[in-house]
């Protein structure tokens, strides 16, 4: 079993009096350390799937396994703890906390949860991340004093600060110009290689699709393609039969 597995996942939203089926029975498996692109047009269910993998939303049917453990029976507090300990998030609109500066935004997830990190260790780690994302000169600046690219770098550092197994990135380059988007992708790929962090993207961006190890394409809430780079057969985790 992989680090993430979806088993016949369906998601139905009530939209007024109408029920909208955003995800119509999706199954796939993601290996640890992969750089995965979930691609598809708008409304295909990318963000919904990412939300369910990120435990910020629950499937109407089916099961999401994280590191082999089912998540559908967990209560809100357990889901919150699991998110905090296992997942990092990068959002399309950066979603930094406006009243905190760069250093504080990155530190924020470390102040939540029960695990306390030593002061010196914490400082060293945050300084390292700030250096990695190239914002050493900007550590005292508030988000509104940064460019879009800089904000996304802060978001990347924040996503990594708890050393999560998985980073979920929802259209991370959508609000960036192409040059900045390129830099951000290179940065994430570098981190993926160095820290073996699993990156799962939802994206329209062809550049992400091009560098992904594993591509999952969606259309109308269904998986239309699920393969590893350079392979024709549907992708499957070790010990699992292929699902597509």
């Amino acid at each position, binding site marked *: 079993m992989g680090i993430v597995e979806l088993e016949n996942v369906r998601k139905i939203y009530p939209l007024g009096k109408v029920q909208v089926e955003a995800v119509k029975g999706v199954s796939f498996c993601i290996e640890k350390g992969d750089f995965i692109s979930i691609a598809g047009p708008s409304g295909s269910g990318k963000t919904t799937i990412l939300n369910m993998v*990120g435990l910020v939303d629950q499937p109407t049917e089916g099961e999401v396994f994280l590191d082999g453990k089912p998540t559908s029976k967990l209560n809100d507090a357990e889901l919150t703890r699991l998110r905090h300990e296992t997942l990092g998030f990068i959002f399309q609109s950066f979603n930094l906390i406006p009243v905190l500066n760069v250093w504080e935004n990155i530190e924020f997830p470390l102040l939540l949860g029960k695990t306390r990190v030593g002061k010196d260790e914490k400082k060293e780690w945050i300084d390292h991340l700030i250096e990695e994302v190239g914002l050493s000169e900007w550590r005292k600046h508030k988000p509104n004093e940064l460019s879009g690219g800089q904000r996304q770098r802060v978001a990347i550092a924040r996503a990594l600060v708890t050393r999560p197994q998985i980073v979920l990135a929802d259209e991370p380059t959508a609000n960036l110009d192409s040059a900045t988007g390129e830099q951000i992708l290179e940065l994430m790929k570098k981190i993926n290689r160095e820290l073996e962090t699993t990156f799962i993207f939802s994206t329209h961006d062809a550049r992400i699709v091009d560098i992904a190890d594993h591509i999952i394409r969606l259309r109308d809430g269904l998986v239309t393609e699920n393969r590893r780079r350079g392979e024709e057969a549907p992708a499957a985790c070790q010990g699992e039969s292929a699902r597509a």
Partner: protein
Amino acid sequence: MNTLANIALRNLTRQKKRTVLLGSAIAFGVMIVTLINGFAGAFSANVSENFADLMAGHVFISGTEKGADDEELSVIRDDSALTAAVEASGAPVRYVTRRSSFSGTLIFEGKKLRTNIDGADLSKETFLRDRLLLKEGSWDSMSDENALILSEKIASRLNVGVGDLILVQLETVTGQANVGEFRLAGVSYDAGIFGQMISYANLGYVNRLIGLAPDEYQTMGVMLDGLRHTEAAADAIYGRLYGGVQLFERGAKDEDGAVTPFQALMRQQKKESWQGVKYRLFTINEVLSQIEQIVAALDTTAGVILVVLFVIIMVGITNTFSMVMFERIGEIGTMRALGVRRGGVRSMFLYEALFLALGGAVAGIALALVAMGVISLFDFGMDSPAFIIMKNGHLSFFLPPLRAVGNVLIIAALTLVAVASPAGKAAKLTPAEALRTQK
């Protein structure tokens, strides 16, 4: 500081105008209430202190003598035991006064008016001249034996002027009808509802009118260094008198429908039987116990104003925080995704409201203290009709610290109640809902 509390505090600076407006509304409410509380706090002390000056004492001892046919005479014939007890009590005594008084009818050119007349030794009670300012006439004219000082209102109702002769009908201490004649020496400024009740004449002449000897009197007044010493001094003097002279019991209960402890004492006196002179000791606080009811009414009014103002302000706070929640919905989603629990989101909003309330309340109290300082600088003069509630002609304030703390706590609690609903809604949002709804 807790991370979420820190964020909540910083969030207050995001919409400065909104924060200032809400904070000002809270501060204004607190200021008004604190001013009323401050006024009420000083009201009791001021009235009691001023009244103590007019009555010439904080602690009083009066004597009641049973005659042969069981009639009661209000008289102190020999005060050596009383004087010794006052001296031995160790109380901080400024001076001791001796007064007689009666309730009689003043008659002038067909006009009649019933009033109390206090006989005082004005050569000794020089402080009365400072307390009771004359509108017409002079204190020097009080050297005439039958001189009289009336308040402005009484003089006006009788239509008398300085120098006029006024007839008085009264009863002596033994119940005999008697008449006398006063010459109006002065008209004092009205001292509010309390000051109007007392007119002043010479002790010797009053004694003669009521049938007492020149060296006798009815009430000894013990003026202390301040109102705060009253009860301790009364206890000490009572302790010294106890066993040496016949004494009525102190602290009589409010029985038989008595409104004040003083009335209860008077009723107790009527019920008892004794031989010779029996003394009763009472204090200005017992005489003016109804002042406490006025203070309680003022404090209740302040409390009602506090609640009414805050119900209005709470509506504003609830609406504002509902708007704030909607504005920050993306942040709520982000925080929930990053690992903040529902309770954490709720706490963040509650912290923000609490800081706003505390900031507003502290500012309101500070403004009220400044306002009290400024108002107390104005000198309304001792001739002000409201002088009885003032301190040397100035409005004075005393804010009991516990009341200020209580007001702050009430405001903090009401603000938290006002924010509970939007904070609860924010906490109930699932991270996905919040992230989907963000602008």
